[in-house]
C-alpha cells in the first residue's frame, strides 16, 4: 500500500499526527541546513573566502545536533507508537536519511577545509571545474530533499541518472588533477586537497541519491537500492 503525505494526518491519535509532522519538518530543516552548508562551501571555494569556509566548518556541529534530536524523536516514535506499515517504513527511512544527512554535513565541511588548504595554483586552475561539479551536486541534492519532503518516490530514478553523470565528471576532474600533480610535483599538497574536495562532492551526491531511494521505499514499500538498472526501471514504472 503506497504511503501518501496526507496519510500522516489520518491517525486516530492527533498526537501521533503531530509527532510525525514534526519529524518530517525537522528532516526538512536538517536537509536544508546541509544543503546550505554545501552552497556556502562552494561559494567559499569560488571566491577563495577563508572566513566563510571557517564558518562552514564551525556550523557542522549544528548539523550534528539536529541528527541527535531527530534520532531521539524517532526512538520516541518507535517506543510510543510501534509504527507499522507505511509509518514504519517512513520512520525507518527518516532514521537512514538522518545518517546520510550527517555524512553530507561532514562532506560539506571537508570541501570547506579543502578551500582553506588548497590556495594557490591548483585552485586557480581547477576551482572553477570543482565549483561546477559542486553546483550540479547541489542541484541534485535539492531535488532529493524536495522528493523526500514531498514523498515523491518516482524522482529517485532521475536522480540516480544524474548521480551517475556526476560520478563521471568527478573521475575526469580527478584524472586531470593527477596529471597536474605529475607535471607540478611542488603543488601536490594543494592538488590533493582538491582531489579530496572532488571526491567529497561525489560522495555527497551518492548520499543525496540514497535519500531519494529511501523515500521510494517509504512510499512504495520496495527497496530499489542495489538493483540493476533494468529492475529499477521496472519497479519505478510500476510505481
Amino acid at each position, binding site marked *: *500500500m503506497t504511503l501518501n503525505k496526507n*496519510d500522516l494526518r*489520518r*491517525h*486516530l*491519535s492527533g498526537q*501521533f499526527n503531530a509527532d510525525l509532522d514534526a519529524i518530517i519538518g525537522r528532516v526538512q530543516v536538517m536537509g536544508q541546513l546541509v544543503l546550505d552548508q554545501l552552497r556556502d562551501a562552494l561559494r567559499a571555494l569560488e571566491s577563495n573566502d577563508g572566513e566563510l569556509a571557517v564558518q562552514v566548518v564551525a556550523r557542522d556541529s549544528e548539523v550534528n545536533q539536529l541528527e541527535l534530536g531527530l534520532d531521539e524523536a524517532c526512538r520516541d516514535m518507535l517506543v510510543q*507508537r*510501534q*509504527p*507499522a*506499515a*507505511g*509509518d*514504519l*517504513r517512513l520512520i525507518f527511512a527518516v532514521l537512514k536519511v538522518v545518517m546520510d544527512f550527517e555524512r553530507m554535513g561532514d562532506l560539506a565541511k571537508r570541501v570547506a577545509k579543502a578551500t582553506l588548504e588548497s590556495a594557490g595554483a591548483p585552485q586557480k586552475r581547477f576551482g572553477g571545474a570543482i565549483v561546477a561539479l559542486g553546483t550540479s551536486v547541489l542541484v541534485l541534492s535539492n531535488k532529493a530533499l524536495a522528493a523526500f519532503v514531498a514523498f515523491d518516490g518516482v524522482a529517485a530514478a532521475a536522480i540516480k541518472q544524474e548521480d551517475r553523470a556526476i560520478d563521471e565528471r568527478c573521475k575526469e576532474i580527478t584524472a586531470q588533477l593527477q596529471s597536474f600533480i605529475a607535471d607540478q610535483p611542488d603543488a601536490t599538497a594543494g592538488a590533493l586537497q582538491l582531489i579530496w574536495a572532488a571526491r567529497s562532492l561525489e560522495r555527497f551526491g551518492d548520499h543525496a541519491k540514497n535519500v531519494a531511494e529511501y523515500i521510494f521505499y517509504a512510499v512504495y*514499500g*520496495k527497496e530499489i537500492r542495489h*538493483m540493476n538498472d533494468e*529492475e529499477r526501471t*521496472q519497479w519505478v514504472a510500476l510505481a
Partner: protein
Amino acid sequence: MVEKNTMDMSLRVAAKDPSTETAPLAELKAEAKGLDFWYGDNQALKNINMRIDEFRVTALIGPSGCGKSTYLRCFNRMHDLQDNTRYGGQILFQPDGVNILDRSVDPIEVRMRIGMVFQKPNPFPKSIFENVAYGLRVRGQKNRAEIADRVEQALREASIWDEVRERLDDMAFNLSGGQQQRLCIARALATEPELLLFDEPTSALDPNATANIEDLIHRLKEKVTILIVTHNMQQAARVSDYTAFMYLGELVEFGATRGVFTNPAKKQTEDYITGRYG
C-alpha cells in the same frame, strides 16, 4: 523478475530466518472455502477463502466485531452450542479432506482433533493433574500409567512442569493467571490435537506471562498447527508466520506476516495496523 526473487530468497536465507527457511515444506492443514456464518439473520462471516499451513502460526487480526473470533470458533464447531446459528461453505481439514462443517460430521469428532485455548484461563475446579488428564478421560483412556505419562509430557510441552511437578494434586485455581493459561494449553496438548486454536490467549495476562505464552507458541509450532486470534498487533507480528486481516466479516488481506506489517496490500489493512481512520 525471477532473478530478483532468487536474490530475495538468498538474502533471507543468509539472514537465517526460520519462517522462510522452511517455507517451501509447508503443507496445507486446513482450508476455508466460501465460508459463511450466520447468527440468526445476521451474517457474521462472508465468503471467507483462506488456507492454513501445517506447522505454521496463522494470526487473525481486525477490529472488535470483525468476525475473527467467530471465524476461529467455526474450526471446532463451538457455534453448535448456540441455537439459531448456521454455517455455509466449507472448511476442509487435511490430510483426510473432511469438511468439518458438514452436518454429517459430529462436532465432538472435530473437537477431538482440534483443540482450543480461550481468552480467559478456564481451568476446571479440579486438581492440576485432573485438568490435564480430562481430555484423556473423555477419550476413554483408563490406563493410569499412560495417563500419568501423557499428563507429564503435556505439562512439559506447556513449559509449566517445573512449576507444578511438586503439587499436581493442588487445585488449579491456586495457580497464577499465566500458569493457569499454560495449564489450559497443557490440557489441550494432552489430547495431541492436529490444530490448536488460540482465542486472544494473553488478553487477561500481564506482560511477563504474555511473553511466556508467546515463547511457548513459538516452540509449539514444531508439532502442531496454530491459529491465533489476537487484538494485539505486535503480538501477531511477533508470533505468526501468516496474518489475516478481517473487517466486517470479510477477509480483507491474507499473507506472510512480514509483508502485512511492513507493506500491506490493502488500504483497510494499512489503516487498521497503523491506527488510522477507516
